[in-house]
């Protein structure tokens, strides 16, 4: 087992020493440093090929396409995880294996959407990036996600790349997110290695982090968290380095950490909140950990206060809209939890999608199994931390952070809270992964029998598979034919063509009322203004749900000065995969049991002064100016 002297080396430098005088043996040993990397590259690429095959079959509507997907994912993950458990790989091989895992799992996301962004969040950020490219300025108004333009970190980097390379936003975005994920994986390894002391522990912890529910798809999409989270882990890495540095290096690292913290704040609100929360926990732990120094507490206090000050300045002077954006969701989720505890509401049925479908039994078993395994592993890991590392402040902080994991699962029983619970995983796993790796290390300290290796491999595979099941709904894991309100399957050529027609024939910034996914396409590809409750204080869902347009509906349309309505007839034939047709306040949101009634759109065909100006079969555009502008 390789070790580093954690108190004497301020940077993760070399962990194994080969004397320079032994150049000959060094040369002979060099290819061995790659260990099993070449073979594992070939094996994992076969896994990627299987995933690609699954995608091809899914696009052809094969209902067995999930099978090669799961086999492919396991072929990528399991061999590398097994190798990480072994004590044979060098540090170089472990890092190379993590880079391999990074590349292959990022390919899984790219294979899902290889020609354009198809996840809803990606279109929202695409619009912000395009605004920057068109205006050469930041903070343009983005009606499909107003908060996005006030956290433009991702889009700034993308626009620099687009301006200098000539690539389009999709290609540049893939590059930026790819590099960000590489930073995430490598900084996590270095951080865990510094804190835990061995490359083996760090490798296992990083692999377990990769198994978190949001890693494969959510944090690989073109959205602000995908860049902010790597920045946050890099900042933590720099702060830990700084704690171990002296003299000039201390101040240099302080400067770099400050720059990265500013980048986190400018890139994503939730990551900023989580980062502040972690710093606060770290600070509190510094008061109670045995052998602490007041100097450490003082330095952490300054970092925390700096981070808090930057966050508040950004929030109050630039991104004040964040409060309106996050506040209602958090309050609704908390309210539902309170109601659940009081017994005033029935809990949400776990695993049932918002489209009403239940995944296969084995998926539910695997999801629960992963949760149970993590819940069983946490006490073991925490016990090991408290027994062997109680003077290691950062390790104790991570152990405390891991205690939050079980609590978040209460939120999964509420319809709004489930989104928050899942969204917390990528942050909590920073702590959970190391604590679980500590638990595994309990057994690694002795020589393993084959069945013990098998059990551990199965455990890690279960956490990986269960994570994907918990984090991403079945129909959205693979590309495929059109589905109603589905990430990955609702962004398709007919709607995109309608949005582009709108932009070409009627210009941008017309006020367009439409459903959840057409609003994303009209707002991005079409560059239209999409009225919303958050910005305009008016919800338009009642305009669609009403059997006929009455004074109340007309008032709403006039309040937002609606120009056009885009109707998608396919909404009248399927339940929404993401739970809503229009927005979260609509009747039966996240609990629809029947498709949208045909009258929702049919009524516009027979209304006086409403022109049906566009028809492409499924997508119809109505010009509402005749009734909205009438005075």
């Amino acid at each position, binding site marked *: 087992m390789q070790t580093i002297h954690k108190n004497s080396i301020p940077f993760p430098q070399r962990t194994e020493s080969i004397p320079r005088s032994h150049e000959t043996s060094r040369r002979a040993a060099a290819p061995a440093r790659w260990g099993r990397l070449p073979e594992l590259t070939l094996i994992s690429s076969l896994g990627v090929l299987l995933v690609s095959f699954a995608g091809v079959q899914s696009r052809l509507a094969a209902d067995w396409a999930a099978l090669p997907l799961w086999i492919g994912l396991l072929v990528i993950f399991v061999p590398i995880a097994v190798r990480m458990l072994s004590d044979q790989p060098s540090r170089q091989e472990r890092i190379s294996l993590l880079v391999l895992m990074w590349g292959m799992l990022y390919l899984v996301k790219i294979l899902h959407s290889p020609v354009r962004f198809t996840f809803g969040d990606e279109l929202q950020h695409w619009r912000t990036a395009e605004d920057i490219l068109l205006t050469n300025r930041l903070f343009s108004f983005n009606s499909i996600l107003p908060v996005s333009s006030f956290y433009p970190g991702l889009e700034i980097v993308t626009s620099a790349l687009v301006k200098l390379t000539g690539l389009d936003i999709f290609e540049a975005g893939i590059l930026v997110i790819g590099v960000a994920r590489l930073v995430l994986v490598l900084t996590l390894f270095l951080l865990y290695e510094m804190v835990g002391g061995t490359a083996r522990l760090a490798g296992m912890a990083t692999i377990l982090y990769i198994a978190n529910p949001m890693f494969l798809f959510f944090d690989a999409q073109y959205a602000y968290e995908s860049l902010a989270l790597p920045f946050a882990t890099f900042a933590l890495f720099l702060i830990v380095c700084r704690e171990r540095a002296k003299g000039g290096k201390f101040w240099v690292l302080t400067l770099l950490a400050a720059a990265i913290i500013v980048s986190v704040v400018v890139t994503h609100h939730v990551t900023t909140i989580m980062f502040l929360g972690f710093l606060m926990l770290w600070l509190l732990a510094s008061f109670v950990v045995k052998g602490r120094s007041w100097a450490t507490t003082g330095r952490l206090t300054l970092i925390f206060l700096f981070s808090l000050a930057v966050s508040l300045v950004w929030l109050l002077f630039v991104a004040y809209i964040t409060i309106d954006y996050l506040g209602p969701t958090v309050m609704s989720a908390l309210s539902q939890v309170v109601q659940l505890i009081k017994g005033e509401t029935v809990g949400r049925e776990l695993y049932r999608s918002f489209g009403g479908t239940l995944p296969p039994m084995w998926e539910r078993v695997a999801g629960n199994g992963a949760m149970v395994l993590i819940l069983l592993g946490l006490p073991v890991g925490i016990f090991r931390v408290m027994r062997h590392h109680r003077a290691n402040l950062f390790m104790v902080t991570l152990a405390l952070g891991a205690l939050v994991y079980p609590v978040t699962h209460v939120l999964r029983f509420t319809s709004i809270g489930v989104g928050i619970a899942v969204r917390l995983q990528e942050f909590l796993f920073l702590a959970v992964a190391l604590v679980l790796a500590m638990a595994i290390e309990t057994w690694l300290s002795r020589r393993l029998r084959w069945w013990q290796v098998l059990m551990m491999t199965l455990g890690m595979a279960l956490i990986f598979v269960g994570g994907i099941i918990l984090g991403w709904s079945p129909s959205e894991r693979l590309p495929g034919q059109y589905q109603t309100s589905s990430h990955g399957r609702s962004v398709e050529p007919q709607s995109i063509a309608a949005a582009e027609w709108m932009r070409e024939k009627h210009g941008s910034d017309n006020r367009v009322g439409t459903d959840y996914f057409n609003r994303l396409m009209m707002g991005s590809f079409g560059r239209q203004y999409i009225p919303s409750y958050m910005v305009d204080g008016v919800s338009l869902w009642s305009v669609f749900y009403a059997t006929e347009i009455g004074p109340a509906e007309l008032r709403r349309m006039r309040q937002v000065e609606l120009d056009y309505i885009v109707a998608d007839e396919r909404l009248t034939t399927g339940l929404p995969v993401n739970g809503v047709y229009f927005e979260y306040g609509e009747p039966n949101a996240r609990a629809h049991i029947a498709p949208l009634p045909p009258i929702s759109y049919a009524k516009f065909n027979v209304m006086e002064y409403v022109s049906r100006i566009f*028809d492409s079969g499924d997508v119809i555009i109505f010009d509402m100016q005749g009734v909205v502008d009438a005075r």
Partner: protein
Amino acid sequence: MRANLGALILLFLVDFVTAVLLVLVVSEPVAPAALYLRVLFAVLLVLVLPGYAVFKALLPGEYDAITQAVYSVGLSPCIALIGGLLLHWTVGLYANHWIMLLGGITLVASLVAFVRVVLNHPFESDTDEDTSWEINWQQLVTFGMGIVVAAVAVNMAHSSAVAQDERVHFTQLWTYKSAGAVQIGVLNAEGQPMQYNILAFDDQRALIGSWEPLVEADDTWELEMSIPVSNDTETINVVLYRSDRPSEIYRQTRLWLRQPLTDDTPQRR
């Protein structure tokens, strides 16, 4: 000393890439090779080089490859981000401003790093590099096969996605008022040339125009029609038929020519 030489060579390469990119951006090349070179160098300038140069300028000791890589790709987006904010508050995020900002930071930082490495500054670490990039031919072949298989997987997924898009067939029909006339148009996205039959009626169902355009795949057909002068005409209804299904209305639009005089709730019509 050997590691210092390596650092100096790398810093020279950083400056070389920056200088070439500057020329490529300013000269706006059209040759494919120059364009590819521009993409490659620009990706390096945004995502790798500023971070590496700043890291070497501020912490010029010897570090292992992984640490240098993390600082390079971790700091570079951060430099672009903070630089982007500064550009927004000053001269704007134009391409030439980006190249001056990122290129300037990279050149200045690499100059500082160059001086500090040469001066063998006091921060220098006492560790030596143990990472070896040597690889034997069997490993190279195996590794190469893995890359090829992954490339095949990407190509397969890309072709499949493009083919799926091509399987989505539709026809757009539009009618709208513009510049005192009625614009009627058709986009054929059926994947093959289409013969359409288009009829326009007024609200009394009187035929006011008919056309039989043959529209190539992915092509459009457009027509400008003057607005009927009769005061009785309130709407223009346009109906599109496919020539292979002449009895079935395929697309239809309806255009109101006037607006209501009052703001009463509109009636069913």
